[in-house]
């Protein structure tokens, strides 16, 4: 089950903790993978550790021309694009009273607008081939909200609404569009938290531990598979029971 041999996948934000695990998991199931992100060196390192069936196309998700180039180069490198994992995302946390327009705009631009642009660019080929898997990495805070993250939560909630709309537009063409919503996952981003902060978070997680990037990647592999053909417009929450929606 969940064999991805012969499939071509593009993962954005692949230099990050979760993105790297997703790329590794898709590759492990047999897919050819294009790694994208802003840190070319980290992408090349991941490419070297994965070996064959791996390409790198660095790109900025806040630059419309760069996004179009990414879609074109990924398709050219792999010959097609079957699976698009929109994982790239940034945070600019601040309480709303102090949040600057730039902080709001930047997060919306990268996390939501960039994802829409890349998905639109990838759609054409998927429609032609009557097959596609779009998996958007949203977040639990897109559903529950989180103080200090009005911008991030709005972008992540936006991804869910966008995915449901695209799912309805594209279902008849064999293209599914779904979200994966991680809870608190152990990554370099959460390493920065103090022990007290971690304790506070875990008090809200019935599983009583942080999740791992591999546990997120497993959800992505499922949604990317042929077996998940009848699942579309959904959000898969992987959060140790932190929110049950």
């Amino acid at each position: 089950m969940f064999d991805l041999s012969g499939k071509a996948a593009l993962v954005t934000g692949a230099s990050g903790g979760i993105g790297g695990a997703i790329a590794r998991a898709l590759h492990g199931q047999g897919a050819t993978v294009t790694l994208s992100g802003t840190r070319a060196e980290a992408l090349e390192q991941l490419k070297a550790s994965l070996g064959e069936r791996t390409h790198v196309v660095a790109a900025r998700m806040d630059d419309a021309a760069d996004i179009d180039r990414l879609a074109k180069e990924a398709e050219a490198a792999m010959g097609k694009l079957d699976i698009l994992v929109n994982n790239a995302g940034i945070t600019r946390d601040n309480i709303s009273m102090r949040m600057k327009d730039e902080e709001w705009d930047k997060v919306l631009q990268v996390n939501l607008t960039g994802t829409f642009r890349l998905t639109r660019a990838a759609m054409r080929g998927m429609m032609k081939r009557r097959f596609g898997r779009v998996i958007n990495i949203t977040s639990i805070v897109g559903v529950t909200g989180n103080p200090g993250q009005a911008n991030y939560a709005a972008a992540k909630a936006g991804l869910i609404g966008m995915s449901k709309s695209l799912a309805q537009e594209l279902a008849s063409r064999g293209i599914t569009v779904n979200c994966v919503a991680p809870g608190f996952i152990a990554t370099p981003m959460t390493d920065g938290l103090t022990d007290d902060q971690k304790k506070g978070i875990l008090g809200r997680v019935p599983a009583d531990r942080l999740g791992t990037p591999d546990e997120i990647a497993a959800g992505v592999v499922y949604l990317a598979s042929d077996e998940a053909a009848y699942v579309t417009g959904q959000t898969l929450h992987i959060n140790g029971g932190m929110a049950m929606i």
Partner: protein
Amino acid sequence: MSDIAERVKKIVVEHLGVEVAQVKEDAKFIDDLGADSLDTVELVMAFEEEFGIEIPDDAAEKIQTVGDAIGFIKSNAKS
């Protein structure tokens, strides 16, 4: 140039699964031939490929009938 009309009609027949007789020049893709909005996008993509042309979005919006498509392609096709 008449073969442009034939090629356009062939694409429409294949894509929308309609009878050749239905594909008249004044037939509207959506109202008469049962296309949905995604079908019209795909038809434009198919025309672009068949004739090696670019059909910009604002031009594509104006292509509502089989005749519109033939007309646009005749005045823009390279071959």
